[in-house]
């Protein structure tokens, strides 16, 4: 395997990982408040379509769109769209005390429906598949750090070959880790997710924490959608359900990290490496494996490789369920709505 293709593999893994990193860090914050939001894919969809639609309407018909303005518009639209998704979830589960699982799953269906409806419309408006043009915004998202990405040889290729959201994602993960571990408010948030009755008795506003953590978490998840649509598929719309698959991987990653944002950084890259195995495994290895399984065509092996991230997820879930330490378990009240006067 050549160095070039190894590096390409790493780059692809990081790009892919950034999306699920954002998704899972947002979901970690959400789950730390005791809200099991299974609407992550839906919220990522909302963020994605928000960003795309915002940039599209600014750039479409504008002869000389400004890349920075387009970028800001798209981010703001994405945050609003995904934040609203989070708020809707909170209103349903915290205020109306609806079942969290059902609400989350419905939110996923809702988000994907809304996004694909408008995504399809945008495709029509712009005259066909692949014709959506948000070139300015997309190029701004994919712009690389001028000096660092060019002049440091292999270091540039490994570490500085990405758009700015990758670094923002890492910063958010680190900040979330610090917040949960070191701040008073983070301590309160963890208490809300562990035992809301206790937090309530300690004078913590449970409802406020649940709303804030879930909405801010949803906004972070929305950024994952932004990255997907602007950087990963370079400013187009994909009706193939690609976001949804990534959204579920983000939920799995939350468990993998045992609810630690910092672990989501390397965890997401590991997931990325697994995901791209099928493209980068050298043909010679495939040939040997194909012989071993008894298929005539080595390219058939690709289909098996594609299963790897999902198999890894299953193995991880099994390992996690065996984990005994109380500190690496899910927040105790995860998935349970809280009502103070319930007896």
């Amino acid at each position: 395997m050549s160095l070039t293709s190894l590096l390409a593999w790493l780059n692809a893994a990081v790009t892919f990982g950034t999306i699920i990193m954002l998704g899972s860090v947002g979901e970690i914050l959400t789950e730390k408040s005791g809200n099991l939001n299974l609407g992550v894919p839906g919220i990522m969809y909302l963020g994605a379509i928000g960003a795309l639609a915002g940039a599209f309407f600014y750039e479409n018909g504008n002869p000389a769109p400004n890349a920075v303005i387009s970028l800001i518009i798209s981010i703001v639209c994405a945050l609003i769209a995904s934040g609203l998704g989070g708020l809707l979830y909170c209103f349903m589960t915290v205020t109306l005390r609806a079942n969290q699982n059902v609400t989350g799953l419905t939110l996923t269906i809702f988000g994907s429906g809304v996004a694909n409806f408008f995504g399809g419309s945008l495709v029509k408006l712009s005259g066909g598949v692949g014709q959506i043009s948000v070139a300015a915004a997309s190029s701004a998202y994919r712009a690389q750090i001028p000096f660092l990405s060019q002049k440091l040889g292999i270091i540039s290729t490994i570490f500085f070959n990405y758009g700015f959201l990758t670094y923002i994602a890492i910063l958010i993960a680190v900040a979330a880790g610090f917040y949960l571990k070191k701040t008073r408010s983070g301590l309160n948030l963890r208490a809300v997710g562990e035992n809301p009755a206790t937090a309530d008795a300690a004078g913590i506003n449970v409802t406020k924490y649940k709303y804030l953590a879930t909405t801010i978490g949803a906004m972070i998840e929305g950024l994952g959608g932004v990255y997907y649509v602007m950087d990963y598929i370079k400013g187009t719309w994909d009706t193939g359900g690609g976001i949804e698959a990534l959204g579920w991987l983000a939920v799995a990653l939350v468990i993998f990290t045992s609810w630690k944002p910092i672990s989501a950084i390397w965890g997401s890259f590991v997931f990325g490496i697994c995901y791209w195995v099928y493209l980068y495994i050298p043909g010679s290895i495939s040939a040997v494996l194909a012989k071993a399984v008894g298929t005539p065509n080595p390219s058939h092996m690709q289909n098996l490789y594609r299963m790897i991230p999902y198999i890894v997820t299953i193995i991880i879930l099994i390992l996690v369920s065996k984990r005994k330490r109380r500190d690496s378990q899910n927040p105790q009240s995860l998935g349970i709505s809280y009502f103070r006067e319930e007896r």
Partner: protein
Amino acid sequence: MDDRSAVRMENVSKRFGSIIANDHVSMNINYGEILSVLGENGSGKTTLMNMLAGIYYPDEGYFYVNGKEVTIKSPHDAYKLGIGMIHQHFKLIDVFTAAENIILGIEGSRTYDLKEVNKRVREIAEQYGFDIDPEQKVYDMSVAQKQTLEIVKILYRGANILILDEPTAVLTPQETSRLFKILRAMRADGKAIVLITHKLNEVLELSDRVTIMRKGQYITTIPTPVATEQILTEAMVGEKVTLDIDRPMPVNPVKRLEIRNLTVYNDEQFKALDNVSFDVYGGEILGIAGISGSGQKELLEAIAGLQRIEEGGSITYYDPDGNVRELTGVSVRDIRNLGIHLSFVPEDRLGMGLVASMGMTENMMLKEYDRGRSPFVNRSASEKVADEVQKELDVVTPSLDTPVRKLSGGNVQKVLVGREIAAEPIILMTAYAVRGLDINKSYTIYNLLTEQKKKGVAVIYVGEDLDVLLALADRILVLCGGKENGVLDARSVTKEEVGRRMTNLVSEEKAS
């Protein structure tokens, strides 16, 4: 007005739907005094104090703290007024350390300095004689340690008015006397202490005044020196009651179970029972004493076939026809069919044994599902059983089909115990059968068990209240950390002796 007055309540009322929990209650709490609030379950004593602590909000009435009228909308408001409450179910976060629990919800700088908190906690601990490690995680703590943490938590916030809701329910006698010493030290320090309880001996031993509540209403307040058990009980129940448990001598007891070298690992791969051996006789009540979590649950479950028993242990059953059977490796259903019945009342009462959303009839049916050949269930037979249980035990329920979760705790327990008795067991095991029940209802259950004993049933009773255990059982098996620590004659042994054995192994004492 008395300048020691800490809290004055006037005409406080609280309703939950159609139930009136508190009906125009007025009372006083003073500094430098321990006040007991005594009442049966459902008398509204906890609800009343919950309002003072900001958990519930009153429908009407006034609170005065330090002479000023106040509105307490949340626990936070209560803390600001110096009021702190220690709830029956501890409000602690298991995965946090003691110090993290203590500073939870306290306003301050954005980040916090745990070292500073640890130092301050150690200072408080020294002042009143607490034994606490601020860096210990709550899930590693014993019940007594958790309670200590709750008290320290409240003192850390500068509370001067402390409310304790049934603090001794989960403690051994030794731990109880340690707690009382601390409470006295706090009283000497000028704090106002409210003790919610239904244990008369504690009231008489510790408090300065007793306020009695019944059915949501304030009855009276008596200075403790003039109070007696009889006066208090009558005020609490509203009628004359006899507080004696009838304990006939066992009539020619027959050996029913022979348990030898029983070792059981629990779900956490922790040795819950370690080489336990004893015998169970028909016609007597065998009490099992021990701090909670000493292996009581595992012991009963092992007999019922719910736990895997380690190699070398044996449970031998002698049935009334003289047959001998080994029970290890026999399925749960077969054991049940032999007449060995378990009624386990877990902490939340409904968790094991009853299905909360089903009515009495359906709950009776749960244990009959495999009778008969028809693919359809036979409702009428279970309905008859449910009807009998309801009449005989006087279960208060709107109908046999009302979901049992809507019944009060006492009635739920009657259903649970009643179902097992209705099956005419040969061995009846009950754990915490009176958990959370008030005096009157507890005695109903004790009498039920004694009646079973008179019929020749072998009764195994796991209990929390040592006084009751000593009055009800014929023999007492003491468990200490999963080890058998003596089988004692309940008629001659002292409470102190049992308490000591619950915490210290006899063999180790001799060795040292």
